[in-house]
């Protein structure tokens, strides 16, 4: 295959895709960078020209930015915690031999197929609505005051919804890891006198370390940019209580029509995502080494 002709041919054939991908990435990035240094406000079209670092100082200096950053980290951390603990537990349960295992697994995976805005709407109206949501009815059944989830615990509510969506993903990956554990190793541990808890701690959990790492890395990438769930349910509020960085960019750029500041926020979000990625790789990346 590696003759000169085939290599040249391969490059020629690949070139269009590479060029398109390159443009697809570079053009928006350069435009965002460009806008982030411009005075560009849709409400104030007369004000144009180079803005220097003004957009950046405006976005980062605003107290809402700090709150959004904290919210982002809580959102990512909370969802990771719930999905990994819950996913491990579900994987352990699904690994047991039971009747109708195949169907059960598909049912467990199904939330992942629901689109984020739809999932958020189901939770918003079907479960968390204080008037006619299921949880409201449940609370009333026990004679309690229904909770107005999105006003009282906005960020927590978003975390619950996102965790519900990502739990199947974590379960699926962890279940696969669990099933690749050799039966003889479990039996050896059993013969060695390890009870169920010790088998989990010393044999199963270390075996799943790599899968857990993968779940953390993949989910973090997606969870940093959570948007639809917030847009559909709380709208980032009350105040900025459930606004993360992605939603802050949306609020600044689209809702407040300040394209310049929005772009600056976008650039900052990219930088934050990279910082988080570097920290993550440092913290858990060593599990990926074979």
């Amino acid at each position, binding site marked *: 295959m590696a003759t000169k002709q085939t290599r040249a041919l391969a490059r020629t054939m690949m070139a269009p895709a590479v060029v398109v991908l390159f443009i697809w990435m570079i053009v928006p990035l350069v435009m965002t960078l460009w806008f982030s240094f411009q005075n560009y406000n849709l409400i104030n079209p007369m004000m144009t020209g180079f803005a220097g670092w003004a957009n950046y100082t405006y976005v980062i200096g605003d107290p809402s930015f700090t709150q959004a950053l904290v919210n982002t980290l809580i959102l990512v951390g909370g969802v990771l915690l719930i999905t990994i603990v819950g996913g491990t537990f579900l994987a352990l349960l699904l690994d047991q031999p039971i009747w109708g295992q195949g169907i059960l697994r598909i049912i467990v995976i199904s939330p992942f197929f629901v689109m984020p805005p739809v999932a958020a709407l189901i939770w918003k109206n079907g479960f968390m609505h204080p008037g006619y949501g299921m949880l409201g009815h449940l609370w009333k059944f026990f004679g309690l005051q229904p909770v107005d989830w999105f006003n009282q615990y906005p960020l927590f509510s978003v975390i619950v919804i996102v965790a519900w969506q990502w739990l199947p993903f974590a379960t699926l990956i962890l279940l696969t890891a669990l099933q690749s554990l*050799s039966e*003889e*190793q479990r*039996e*050896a*541990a*059993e*013969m*060695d*006198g*390890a*009870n169920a808890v*010790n088998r989990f701690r*010393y*044999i199963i959990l*270390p*075996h799943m*370390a790599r899968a857990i790492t993968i779940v953390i890395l993949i989910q973090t990438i997606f969870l940093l940019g959570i948007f639809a769930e917030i847009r559909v349910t709380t709208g980032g509020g009350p105040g900025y209580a459930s606004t993360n960085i992605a939603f802050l960019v949306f609020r600044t750029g689209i809702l407040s029509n300040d394209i310049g500041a929005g772009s600056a926020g976008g650039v900052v979000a990219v930088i934050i995502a990279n910082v988080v990625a570097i920290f993550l790789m440092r913290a858990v990346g060593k599990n990926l080494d074979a």
Partner: protein
Amino acid sequence: MGSITLEHVNKSFGEVEIIPDISLDIRDGEFVVFVGPSGCGKSTLLRLIAGLEDTTSGHIRLDGQDVTDAPPAKRGLAMVFQSYALYPHMSVRDNIAFPLKMAKMPQADIDRKVEYAARTLNLGSYLDRRPRALSGGQRQRVAIGRAIVREPKAFLFDEPLSNLDAALRVNMRLEITELHQQLKTTMIYVTHDQVEAMTMADRIVVLNAGNVEQFGSPLELYKNPANRFVAGFIGSPKMNFVDGAEAAKHGVHSIGVRPEHFRISTSEGPWKGTVNVAEQLGSDTFLHVQTDFGLMTVRADGDQTFKHGDTIYLTPDQTRIYRFDAAGKAI
């Protein structure tokens, strides 16, 4: 102490009966080998003793105590698996120490015992390595080390050498036999290799389709096989069987002659045949001879130089002809 008694043990997986009814008495300190073709239930029998499978009916006694319903950990047995089943994320030291740690032994005692096991098995310089950095033979030793530190009542080996190459297998065979001499603990060893069975065992259990065909010392099985199955299974190359008219001359349904119990001549003898293939091993030559009664395997000296197509005459040693009735039982 480690005597193991099976009383009418039966094991079925759903409709399929793997072990119909086995009773065995394994004495303390004995090296017993379960041998049989694949699917004969030998591994299942071992797993029943280990407690990794539940018996369908019958009883298993350890030192006279009924352990039929006891979990594996409570039986005080140690097992070495075919795949070694080492814990890949732990160092060799932690692997060997694991059963002691689970038994909540003080750290000082654990260290002492791990050191001792490592010395016994020549693992000293590997203690801080991970299993994947070890060769097959070393992994096997770690698995044995993990078994001996517990000072079990008996060792269970489930085809432990089948993943090793031929030379290493011979080595480990000797090492395990040596270990048995040292420890004098009961050992049960499962294999499909009759050479391993013959060389290692004090007594051999020959299994076929879940039944014990014969239980006895290696030479007893070789000299006095209880039936045609044992006769064919023990000994290498396999015994030659002749049915029909030739067997009728001896007044039985079939007769068997081992390859090493023939006299070979180029001029005279009762059985005439043509050499098909001559396998020269140096020490011996195995001749595959086409006779009127079918293909025979015959052992000749290493110096014999028979070629394909040579006509030879075979004289079976009259005192060493095995006789079997229609049901395959030895007479």
